[in-house]
């Protein structure tokens, strides 16, 4: 397997081709088989590869499998080469297995959709591209996957393409991501220009060998711009909430568990660069913290179950960036993993809710679903428990580690550390609050929807509930298994990817136990407070408390509800002016160029038209012209 790493993405790619080309003709059964099977095969192959890798190489060295030289031109080139190293392994496992679960889930969820085959072919393609992203051995290959998942995201968000908003959301996602990709591209150009390579190992080696600080900072910031796009950070987060227009499993897989975490993966992958550029790290941490808080405030006032989760995702991604920004790469990645579990579970759960509610997504119309869809309720509750950061659920460990690192990291001045920590902690509080708000509004109280909806409510089929159960379990225990403090499996596993760089703090630094336990307590307390607050407001009274809030401070409420008008702001400051500029260029400048050029033509024609009238038809005039010509030339020559 190790020599054929390309097979791992190849399986889902084959699935994509089969489903895409034949799926419509061969019918649903075929698709139902091929789609999940491709994913599962990939997961199995990946697992085998991981075991082989580990067996062959216990100390975590990088394994590269060259497929062929992809591009090579002058000094610039890239290989189609896949690599395994501890980091790739983690991502590979998350992506393939969570992906497989979601494939299975989708069989149930999408059962009645018209574009079933299309859905699975996109989903398979996504998996393939995601695997290219995480297995690629160079930035360029990573970029291939990066853009590829962007494409799939675009296609899947716009899956219901006959809905205007879905199509628009897909386009928005792609374009915003492109802005990030622009940064990524420039970063790669810088690497090529200065390091002559984009191979991960070679780049980090070159960076350590005395590259100019400005260069490394620039590369890092540009890479981070890419990460902002993909992982929905300020200022490029705006696409993610809209992306909820896609089918819910897509939200779970792409917009929660895997694709959006690619940015974090990238930063971890580039840890050597980032560690050499503390300024860039500071930016990362700041952006992450601000995003975490900002998105959380919006999530508090959302009514759409998926929108809440979407902003929650943005917020959680912010946490991850706090982690990697403060140098706690392991913690950040840890949160990626746990987040994949619980957020996937939440999204799938919400999907199950929506499924049960016949497509209804507004939590104001829900309520009291606890008893009607018990499996969903339980899994959702566990995942909420995890994301809110209650010990010993998975979210607790990862989030706590991030916040602790934020406070205790050796990179930045103390004040900055405190600032980040405070932001993170507030955001964590908000998280607990809005998640429990969601939980209470959805599952508690009385049913607020129509009778017809109530009549139709039913628990989802096994294909949907089994993944839910698995993910819920993982959400509950995953954190403890992977990252029990001081017996940190993930940290140990990842250690080889963090090179020692002279003069730069180690990537996995120690935090004093006192601080650690203190912070653990604080985290837990915050989660509890958040929960209790939510409970008091929403557990019984439905959303009346929110209405009261609207009445008491309408400005803030409206701001939160309308996502602080960021979209409108972008529209007014960037999109509209650009469009006006374009109109001006088209109708103004183009017309001007044409005008100037045709003016030349008109002048010639006008001269011709004018000279024409010397042609009077009178032969004596002609003789006069002739004679005047003679006189002039005589005068000149004689």
């Amino acid at each position, binding site marked *: 397997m190790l020599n054929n790493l390309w097979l791992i993405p190849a399986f889902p790619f084959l699935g994509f081709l089969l489903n895409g080309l034949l799926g419509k003709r061969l019918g649903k059964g075929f698709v139902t088989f091929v789609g999940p099977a491709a994913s599962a095969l990939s997961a199995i192959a990946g697992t085998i590869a991981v075991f082989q890798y580990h067996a062959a190489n216990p100390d975590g060295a990088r394994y590269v499998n060259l497929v062929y030289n992809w591009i090579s031109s002058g000094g610039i080139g890239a290989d189609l080469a896949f690599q395994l190293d501890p980091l790739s392994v983690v991502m590979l496992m998350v992506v393939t297995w969570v992906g497989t679960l979601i494939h299975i889930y989708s069989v149930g969820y999408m059962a009645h959709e018209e574009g079933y085959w299309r859905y699975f072919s996109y989903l398979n393609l996504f998996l393939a591209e995601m695997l290219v992203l995480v297995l690629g051995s160079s930035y360029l290959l990573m970029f291939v996957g990066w853009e590829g998942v962007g494409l799939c995201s675009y296609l899947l968000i716009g899956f219901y393409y006959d809905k205007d908003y879905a199509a628009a959301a897909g386009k928005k996602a792609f374009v915003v991501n492109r802005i990030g990709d622009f940064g990524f591209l420039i970063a790669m150009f810088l690497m090529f220009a200065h390091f002559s390579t984009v191979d991960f190992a070679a780049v980090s080696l070159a960076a350590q060998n005395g590259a100019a600080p400005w260069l490394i900072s620039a590369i890092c910031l540009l890479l981070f711009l890419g990460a902002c796009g993909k992982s929905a950070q300020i200022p490029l987060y705006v696409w993610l909430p809209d992306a909820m227009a896609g089918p819910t499993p897509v939200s779970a897989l792409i917009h929660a568990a895997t694709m959006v975490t690619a940015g974090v993966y990238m930063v971890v992958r580039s840890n050597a660069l980032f560690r050499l550029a503390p300024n860039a790290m500071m930016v990362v941490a700041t952006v992450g913290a601000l995003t975490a808080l900002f998105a959380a405030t919006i999530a508090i006032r959302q009514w759409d179950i998926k929108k809440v989760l979407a902003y929650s995702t943005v917020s959680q991604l912010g946490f991850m960036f706090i982690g990697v920004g403060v140098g706690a790469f392991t913690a950040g990645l840890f949160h990626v993993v746990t987040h994949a579990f619980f957020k996937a579970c939440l999204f799938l759960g919400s999907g199950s809710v929506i499924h049960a509610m016949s497509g209804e997504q507004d939590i104001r119309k829900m309520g009291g679903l606890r008893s009607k869809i018990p499996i969903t309720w339980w899994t959702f509750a566990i995942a909420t428990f995890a994301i809110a950061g209650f010990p010993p659920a998975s979210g607790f460990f990862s989030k706590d580690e991030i916040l602790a690192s934020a406070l205790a990291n050796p990179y930045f001045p103390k004040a900055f550390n405190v600032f980040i920590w405070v932001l993170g902690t507030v955001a964590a509080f908000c998280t607990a609050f809005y998640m429990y708000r969601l939980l209470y509004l959805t599952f508690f109280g009385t049913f607020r929807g129509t009778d017809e909806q109530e009549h139709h409510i039913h628990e989802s089929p096994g294909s949907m509930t089994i993944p839910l159960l698995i993910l819920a379990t993982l959400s509950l225990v995953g954190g403890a298994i992977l990252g029990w403090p001081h017996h940190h499996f993930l940290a140990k596993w990842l250690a080889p990817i963090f090179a020692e760089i002279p003069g730069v703090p180690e990537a996995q630094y120690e935090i004093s136990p006192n601080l650690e336990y203190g912070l653990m307590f604080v985290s837990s307390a915050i989660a509890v407070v958040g929960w209790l607050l939510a409970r008091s407001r929403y557990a019984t009274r439905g959303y009346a408390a929110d209405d009261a809030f609207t009445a008491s401070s309408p400005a803030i409420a409206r701001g939160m509800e309308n996502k602080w008008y960021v979209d409108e702001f972008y529209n007014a400051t960037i999109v509209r002016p650009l469009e006006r500029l374009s109109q001006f260029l088209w109708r103004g400048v183009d017309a001007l160029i044409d005008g100037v050029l045709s003016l030349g033509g008109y002048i010639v*024609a006008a001269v011709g038209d004018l000279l024409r009238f*010397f*042609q009077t038809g009178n032969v004596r005039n002609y003789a006069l012209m002739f004679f005047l*010509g003679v006189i002039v*030339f005589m005068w000149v*020559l004689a």
Partner: protein
Amino acid sequence: MNLHPLLEPGWVNAILPELILSIGAMVLLFVRARGLASPIALIALIATAWSENLVLPGTYFGNTYQISGLTRIFDITFILAAILATLFASDYLSREGIEGGEFYALLMWGTAGMMMMGKGLDLLIVILGLEILSICIFVLLGYNRKLSVGNEASLKYFLMGAFATGFILYGTALLYGQTGSTNMTQLAAYSSNLRGDAGPLTAIAFVLIMAGFGFKLSLVPFHPWAPDVYQGGPTPVAAWLSTAPKAATLLVLARIFTAMTPTLQANSWMNMMAALAILSMIVGNAVAIAQRDLKRMLAYSGIAHVGYMMVALMTLRDEGVASVAVYTMVYALMNIGAFGVVSMLAKNQNDPQTLDDIAGLGFRRPFYGLALTVCMFSLSGLPPTAGFISKFYVFKTAVESGHTTIALIGILTSIVSVYYYLRVVYYVYMKESPEGSAVPMDGGAFATAALAISVIGILIIGIFPTPLFQAAGAGARQLFMLR
């Protein structure tokens, strides 16, 4: 002037083509059967072309008559023009009901006149040849006596022509006064003895002679007769008039320039020719845009083309003369081809033949449309037509002689020219002919054959120009060696 007391032996050979033409023309006067006139004329013309092979190069008649490779090329151009004009005229005249031997006779005398004019080493011969030509043109233009426009054309050309002849004669007289001879060899000797120091009377003589020939060439500002005359005259005559006489005149100019080269260079009199060339290129092309009458448009385009040829001639190099030789032949092919298509328009010849008349021609009569298109592209100088290769030759000569600026002006004006040539193609292919009101095209076998000759000639010269180039180059070098 040292003239031989007796004619040299071999003089029959020397003037065989002219003899055949003249005698053929006289025979035509007696042909009663109207249908026979054009075939007889064709036979005579072809015989003339054949007789070109029998002519021996050399100087005859007491150094007043020179036959060389160059004159042979020009002779072929004249004969070609005459053949094409005859073919087109045959159909034109029978459509107009004025078929007659006199037409072809005059055409052939005119051709003979041009040949003698081109071969004359003495200005006397040149002027006599020119006069024969002019007389024929006067009559041919008015040949369609029903047409008041034809009569007007004839009148205008006559008055201007006689006026211009007056200038040529007076210029020649002054020149004679300065050099003591009208022979070009004497002129050359005078010019090289004199070096730079030519007096104003020589300059005046030069100006007057150039003005007279400039009239024939329709160089600006001596041009204004051209559009009216082309429009009014019978179309085949206009076709012929726009090509062959210009070629003959250019050959005469080439001789005069060659003879006077030292004087011309020393006094930069060529600036005058440059000015004429530039004016012609600009005015011709600019005004052509404003024309909707095809023949007028072609007249202006002809003015511009003469400008191009002047550019080559004013370089005072053998290459220039060679390129003019090529250009005139090509120009004869393409311009007569273009006029030929116009001549097929079966409508009242008093009315202008406008662009609208050829609308949709390309699909109505595909071959005529294609032929007109080829001619237009050749006129605008686009490859792979002969027009390109000859224009290339001209500008190449200009550039190699350091006249890059004038070449640039030529290029810029020919961009303008593309517009109106293209407009013809636009009418041919892209304009729908109005239903039912399309002007019928009346092309008989002769006219079609003539068009085919034009098109094939244009393409062959365009693609395989080497033989013509070599002949022209050799001829031009001869001319310069004789200087």
